[in-house]
């Protein structure tokens, strides 16, 4: 997979909506995903946003882990895509975080199967989607073969 990428891109860093300074919780952050180094960037951004929204250390870790898995899927299966992180407000004013993982990759032929527990979740090169679903409160996936996959997850602060 790595060989197919032009050297300039695999060596390249990452692009985020705001590289430095305070991150406004209300502003959606977009993280371009092109190489495995972006996995670490995405999950660190997610942890920072979760912390700023008042999530405790345990939830911060669960959110960061879910983002890590989703970003890894992009790198593994689509080579490139993006992660969008956004603060959200739900019913009764509860606060939460939304993570959107989007790619224009090959898509998933059998989404049902990919969501089944035990389907390549043994730590192999699996999609890890059932695990991501367990780590989050809301999970939505849209995938079209040849056009790409979008996974949206939400976690609410209790």
């Amino acid at each position, binding site marked *: 997979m790595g060989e197919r990428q032009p050297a300039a891109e695999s060596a390249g860093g990452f692009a985020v909506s705001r590289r430095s300074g305070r991150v406004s919780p209300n502003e959606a952050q977009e993280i371009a995903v092109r190489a495995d180094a972006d996995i670490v960037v995405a999950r660190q951004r997610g942890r920072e946003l979760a912390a700023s929204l008042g999530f405790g250390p345990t939830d911060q870790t669960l959110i960061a882990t879910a983002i890590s898995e989703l970003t*890894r899927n992009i790198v593994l299966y689509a080579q490139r895509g993006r992660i969008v992180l956004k603060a959200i407000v739900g019913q009764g004013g509860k606060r939460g975080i939304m993570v959107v993982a989007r790619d224009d990759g090959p898509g998933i032929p059998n989404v049902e199967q990919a969501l089944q527990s035990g389907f390549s979740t043994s730590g192999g090169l699996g999609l890890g989607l059932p695990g991501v679903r367990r780590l989050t409160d809301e999970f939505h996936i849209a995938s079209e073969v040849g056009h790409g996959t979008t996974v949206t997850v939400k976690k609410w602060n209790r």
Partner: protein
Amino acid sequence: MVVPILKQGPYLIATIPTALADADLQSLRDGLVAQVGRCRSRGVIVDITALDVMDSFAVRTVRDIAHMTRLRGAETVIVGMQPEVALSVVQLGLTLEGVHAALDLEEGLAFLDEKANAVRGGRPGG
């Protein structure tokens, strides 16, 4: 980022930093497997105290380290997993089958010492 591998008597100790890219974790795996031979090590300790996220790739690579070093004659112990990380690993449905774990570095070293003593004690005339 290169993870340094320290030699402590018959053991090797590697401390994983907070954020480690996939390629660096794989380099650590290869480094440990090679070093076990160069140093004739009997045990390996992978300290993950600082690691704040353990996803499927990290779990798989740590499992690979344990299995590969065992095939080279050294036992691997994972030490220092944070409670939140343990929860996320379990929720992800990942397992570290066949990998020894200990609370911290001290317990990990004690485990390896016990293991080494058991091996020596079990040898005829040893």
